[in-house]
């Protein structure tokens, strides 16, 4: 009885009632919490929520694994991976959090609309740029949803109705004509920046700078045929082959770069663990949020 009432609702009317009731219940609950929880109660609630969610995700990894049956159903675990009583909850809980997180996109868009809206309304310097923002924003939003709603097959068949064509071509112009090229062009600016950064930074000013420069130089030369050409006299056999620039470059990457990177990673491992512990146990809280007044 209760399970059928709490379970999925197939018919429309009970579904609507259930949703409305759930909304009402959460509203009432939030009101009561707000009305009757003092500052200490609120802080306590936040600390507990933080702790429980951290515990759930962490504990699943560390609890002993039972391979034969699944919790809570007790059904045999056929072909599934090993797990414990929390394992079946990880994927749904991650999904729920992803959905909850998705509802915050409104905050980001709101922030943008606020900044640019004010520019346009007050005719601030460069307001037309903000106008262009709105134009491209609405264009991408509406063509994107419109094109999606048509569910066209891929590749696009040659015969389309006029509306289908407008929706699809509009979206293609925005995506392939502007969005993707802007992305690729901005990314490719790095070719120029890396060149000028290399020119400026690699000077033998100090021991450290010199070490950095020499390593970069060897690896760079090792990658172009001119490097191989410079050291072509060295035989490519035996230990002496290491002195050929293309081998030397790879040797620097493997024998010096990888252990150094690993050393950094293992240091960070502990630093991040400590940060996680402080966040989880609300020891860090003072840094983010001052105490409730």
């Amino acid at each position, binding site marked *: 009885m209760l399970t059928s009432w709490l379970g999925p609702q197939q018919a429309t009317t009970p579904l609507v009632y259930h949703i409305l009731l759930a909304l009402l219940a959460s509203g009432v609950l939030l009101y009561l919490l707000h009305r009757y929880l003092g500052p200490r109660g609120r802080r306590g609630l936040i600390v507990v929520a933080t702790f429980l969610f951290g515990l759930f995700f962490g504990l699943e990894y560390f609890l002993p694994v039972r391979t034969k049956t699944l919790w809570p159903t007790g059904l045999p675990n056929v072909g599934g991976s090993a797990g414990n009583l929390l394992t079946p909850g990880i994927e749904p809980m991650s999904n729920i959090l992803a959905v909850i997180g998705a509802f915050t996109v409104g905050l980001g868009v709101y922030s943008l609309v606020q900044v640019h809206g004010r520019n346009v309304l007050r005719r601030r310097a460069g307001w037309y740029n903000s106008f262009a923002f709105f134009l491209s924003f609405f264009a991408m939003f509406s063509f994107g949803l419109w094109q999606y709603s048509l569910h066209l097959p*891929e*590749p696009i*068949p040659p015969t389309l109705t006029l509306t289908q064509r407008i929706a699809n071509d509009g979206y293609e112009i925005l995506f392939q004509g502007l969005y993707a090229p802007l992305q690729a062009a901005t990314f490719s600016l790095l*070719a120029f920046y*890396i060149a000028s950064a*290399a020119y400026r930074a690699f000077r033998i*000013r100090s021991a450290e700078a010199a070490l950095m420069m020499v390593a970069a130089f060897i690896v*760079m030369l090792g990658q172009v*045929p*001119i490097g191989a050409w410079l050291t072509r006299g060295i035989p490519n056999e035996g230990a002496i082959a290491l002195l050929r620039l293309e081998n030397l470059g790879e040797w620097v990457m493997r024998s010096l770069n990888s252990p150094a990177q690993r050393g950094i990673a293992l240091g960070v491992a502990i630093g991040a663990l400590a940060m996680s512990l402080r966040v989880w146990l609300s020891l860090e809280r003072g840094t983010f949020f001052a105490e409730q007044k």
Partner: protein
Amino acid sequence: MADQSGSSGQMGAGASAGGFWARLQQIPRYYIYLLLAAVVIWQILFPIPFPVTPSATTRGLEEAIRAVPEGKLVLISADWDSSTQAETGPQTAAVVEACFRHRKRFVLMTLSPPMGAKLANNIASEIAKQYRATYGVDWANWGYKYGTSNVLMAMVKDVPKTVGSDFYGKPVKSLPIMRGVRTVKDIGLVVEVTGLAGMTEMWIGLIQGPQGVPFAAAYTAVMAPGYYPYLDSGQIEGMLVGAKGAAEMESLIARPGLGMAIMSAQSWAHVLIILFIIVGNLGYVLARGREKSG
């Protein structure tokens, strides 16, 4: 907003004095940008290729293609889009070309960015024309398949059912090339062309390891170093590294093409940057020498 090269912090130390040598240390960035663009455009139009010696990793891939038995297909997984096209495009072309050259039938497939299916299709159909190859008989494109690891796991049991329809929406069962292809074991070699981390681990974990299907790959230069361990352990038969790998493959099958052009543009631009570093240091050393002696 004027250029202030050398104004911040430790960057401009010792560069305050005038003179030719000092100026070599402060080449305005615009000149660097312009020269770089000029070198790249020049090399794209009139490439002066460096001599290419195919590396062991490239040779490994070529040998793996040649070793595919008569009845089996080569599966080229084209998991890239326009962001890495300069490297992965020529790589795909080189692998396709090698297949035609050695008369191996192949299929294309895309698991990750949907755009890859179309871009790879353009490349393959262009090359197919040169070899007078027939779509559906000598090669085919399975198109974009949604679901990454789920697709691979399903392919273990039934390939035609998993793939369903090809790039053009035709059921793959109707293609002559698919005759005799039932499970993933009917594939003689998988070649993963990608700039995405994680694809290789998936193929090795689900297909190469458990099913014993040979696996090879073509990676962007920036991600390739991370996969040498798999090469050492024999889990990857061979690999192309960046545009350089594509150029090496082209030279192996004696068909110089786009990879060669891109590689020469890359190499000459690289040499330009190396020259800039040398010039900057010369300026630094000589200007300091003058300051001391003067």
